[in-house]
């Protein structure tokens, strides 16, 4: 007869949990018969395991509160967030185990229509902000473009995502500054640019967690054109009083600069 594996604490714990395979169970029972003190300990531990289960059982039997229904939570997430609790890292620690963060083509729970709705709401806010601040003579921005580092750090912190002001000099636009905007319960960032002809362009960005990537979406309201898209948890809207054909290459430039900035750590939320 080949030697049997000696009894370990893992066997005894599995015995307490009733998880031993039948063959091993027999071995452990024989072992315990020969050791009455340990057998008594094990019996007590089984009893205490049951006592703990019994004591806590009521909580799992309660009807679950309406606020924990998935439908309620999804509806609440569609609205701007109450506030952001900074514990995301915890969940991500686990996700990182899979090494599959940001897996391409992952499914998301929103339907395409819902996504469109999110994008539309963001675009409306962006165009409204564009309209108000671009026409402002004295104070179009809160922080001027010559303080770009400060501006970018401030807005990134408030929006909760790393941002930067794209370089649009090849498009003929220079940064004149930016400001913080309210967006429901959260913060949005707006960068403003100007070309030599005095035409102003704005880039609006805000966090849209849980949204999948979208294609560019174009719309025009009273002469203001806007391209919007969602990528990597951020909603972007670029707006200007310009033709679609003029604005599209600028939107593409911005998109590519953010893609490049994300670099090889793609998907690293």
């Amino acid at each position, binding site marked *: 007869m080949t030697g049997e594996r000696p009894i*370990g*604490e*893992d066997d*005894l*714990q*599995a015995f*307490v*949990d009733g*998880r031993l395979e039948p063959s091993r169970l027999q071995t452990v029972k024989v072992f315990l018969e020969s050791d009455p003190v340990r057998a008594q*300990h094990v019996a*007590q*531990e089984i009893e*205490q*395991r049951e*006592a*703990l*289960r*019994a*004591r*806590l*059982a009521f*909580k*799992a*039997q*309660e009807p*679950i*509160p309406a*606020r*924990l*229904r*998935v*439908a309620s*939570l*999804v509806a*609440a*997430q569609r609205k701007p967030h109450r506030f952001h*609790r900074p*514990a*995301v*890292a*915890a*969940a*991500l*620690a*686990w*996700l990182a*185990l*899979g090494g*599959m*963060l*940001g*897996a391409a083509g*992952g*499914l*998301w*729970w929103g339907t395409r229509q819902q996504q469109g709705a999110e994008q539309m709401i963001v675009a409306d806010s962006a165009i409204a902000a564009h309209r108000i601040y671009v026409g402002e003579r004295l104070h179009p921005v809160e922080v001027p473009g010559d303080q770009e580092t400060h501006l970018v750090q401030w807005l990134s912190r408030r929006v909760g995502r790393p941002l930067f002001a794209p370089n649009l000099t090849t498009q003929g636009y220079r940064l004149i500054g930016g400001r913080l905007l309210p967006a429901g319960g959260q913060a949005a960032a707006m960068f403003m640019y100007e070309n030599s002809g005095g035409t102003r362009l704005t880039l609006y960005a805000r966090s849209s*967690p*849980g949204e*999948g990537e979208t294609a560019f979406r174009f719309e025009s309201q009273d002469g203001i054109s806007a391209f919007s898209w969602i990528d990597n948890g951020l909603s972007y809207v670029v707006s200007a009083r310009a033709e679609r054909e003029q604005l599209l290459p600028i939107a593409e430039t911005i998109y590519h600069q953010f893609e490049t900035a994300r670099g090889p750590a793609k998907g690293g939320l």
Partner: protein
Amino acid sequence: MDEIASLLEPQIPGLRRYAWALLRDDEAADDLVQDTLERAIRYWAQRRRDGDLKAWLFTIQRNLFIDAVRRRKKHGVRVGVEMLEDAPAVTDTPEGHAGMRDILVGLDLLPEEQRSVLLLVGVEDLSYEQAAQVLDVPLGTVMSRLSRARGRLRDFMENGRGAVLRRVK
């Protein structure tokens, strides 16, 4: 959304029980569960499709709990979930069901990692492998923690409250 609901909602009773066992406060426990579910929904797309949903959810919840406790320790602020790591249940209560009370008092005397392993394995019926995932330790560590936790709980039940109170002081 229906898919998410049909997968997530069956886990809610267990998540609530685990949260309550850690926090011992109805509101705070449901806040913790709500945070857990919100996070799960937000990162639904990124979850490992082949991964274990139950282990994933309990991992999120435990990590949120630990984060909240750490923040509380750092800032000394008591807000919602950030209450009680060391639940104050050690005080004597002259109620009936003394035996049942005792088991929770005993639980409170264990360090969090031992409390969690007892709850996850003994109450939530996670497999040892699932518990190892949630606690982010090797399987062998789960078994020895479980052994230590049960030993201490047994010690407490045998030696009675007085002995333990003296030891705590």
